[in-house]
């Protein structure tokens, strides 16, 4: 069972195979848990939401058709479950429009690079300060190592938007790392390219 790809496990589960269910849960429970825990910033709540996500997924699997990878579908449910929780808490923070924020350029500065390296050690804390959309997309890319097309399926975005949003999210995170930032150099006053 452990060697079976997801879609075959799903097909077995749909026929009522309990072992396939157990395998799929064991394959994904920690990944869903860590994704939700970092999205909502609470490990205790994450465990309950992970169960809720898996329950919704497996109850809905009776109707699921293999037109999307199981993993993308599962993370889509996880994302929606997390955002519902954050909305209930009313602490979700949105990025205005679609990533239309600009961040300054700061040239090549060894001191700043050292500062960034130092701050990146507090990555968990920095992630918590990011806007929800940025945190979500970075977790899918950097932790879950998903492709742009898979992230697009999960978040309902086209690949061009995924590409620009990831770049924006990274810039936002680096901006948080770099605070307080040194003054911009004359050579680095240009705007970043927002085109996809």
């Amino acid at each position, binding site marked *: 069972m452990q060697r079976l790809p997801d879609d075959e496990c799903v097909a077995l589960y749909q026929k009522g195979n309990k072992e396939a269910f157990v395998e799929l849960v064991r394959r994904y429970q920690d990944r869903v848990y860590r994704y939700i825990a970092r999205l909502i910033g609470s*490990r205790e709540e994450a465990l309950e939401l992970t*169960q809720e996500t898996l329950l919704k997924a497996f*109850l809905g699997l*009776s109707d699921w058709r293999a037109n999307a990878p199981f993993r993308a579908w599962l993370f889509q449910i996880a994302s929606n479950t997390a955002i519902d929780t954050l909305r209930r808490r009313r602490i979700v923070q949105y990025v205005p429009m679609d990533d239309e924020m600009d961040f300054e350029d700061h040239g*090549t500065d060894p001191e700043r690079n050292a500062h960034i390296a130092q701050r990146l050690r507090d990555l968990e804390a920095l992630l918590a300060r990011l806007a929800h959309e940025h945190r979500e997309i970075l977790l899918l890319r950097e932790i879950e190592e998903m492709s742009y097309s898979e992230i697009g399926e999960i978040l309902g975005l086209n690949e061009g938007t995924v590409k620009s949003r990831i770049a924006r999210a*990274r810039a936002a995170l*680096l901006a948080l790392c770099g605070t307080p930032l040194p003054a911009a150099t004359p*050579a680095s006053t240009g705007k970043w390219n927002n085109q996809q």
Partner: protein
Amino acid sequence: MSNDCGMRVHLSAYADGELAGALRAGIEAHLQDCPGCTAALRELEALRGAFRALPPLAAGVDLAPVLWPRLERERAAGLWPRAGAYRGWRLAPLSLAAAATVVIGVFLGTLLVHGPAPVGGAPGAAMALFDPVPPGGICLASRLCPPAGKI
């Protein structure tokens, strides 16, 4: 982020291995000569390294034995179908609605073809409502007004 010649989005996609063809080759050529973009790329790599160094989080319990009884309970409550169960019955309301629509359509069509004669008045009297001159009106142009009862 370092000075990146306005190529931040492309550099980010390049770092992810999501650029191909001429665009990828162009970025690689540019990186050979641009210390700003090279530094920006290093920052992105540092960011990736930091993510990879995050402590692994785990649920800490095997959720399968917890979830299976919950699944069974939910299904027993009848809100969700059992995996592998025949679900054709779920189409029953749709099928009934379609059948009813066909029956009503056939019935109405039959009425149009073999429908009962209008109660009272000459045949077609009901259509007199659509005459150029409404019932009881005065016909000012006789060529436009058919004789009564000829519609």
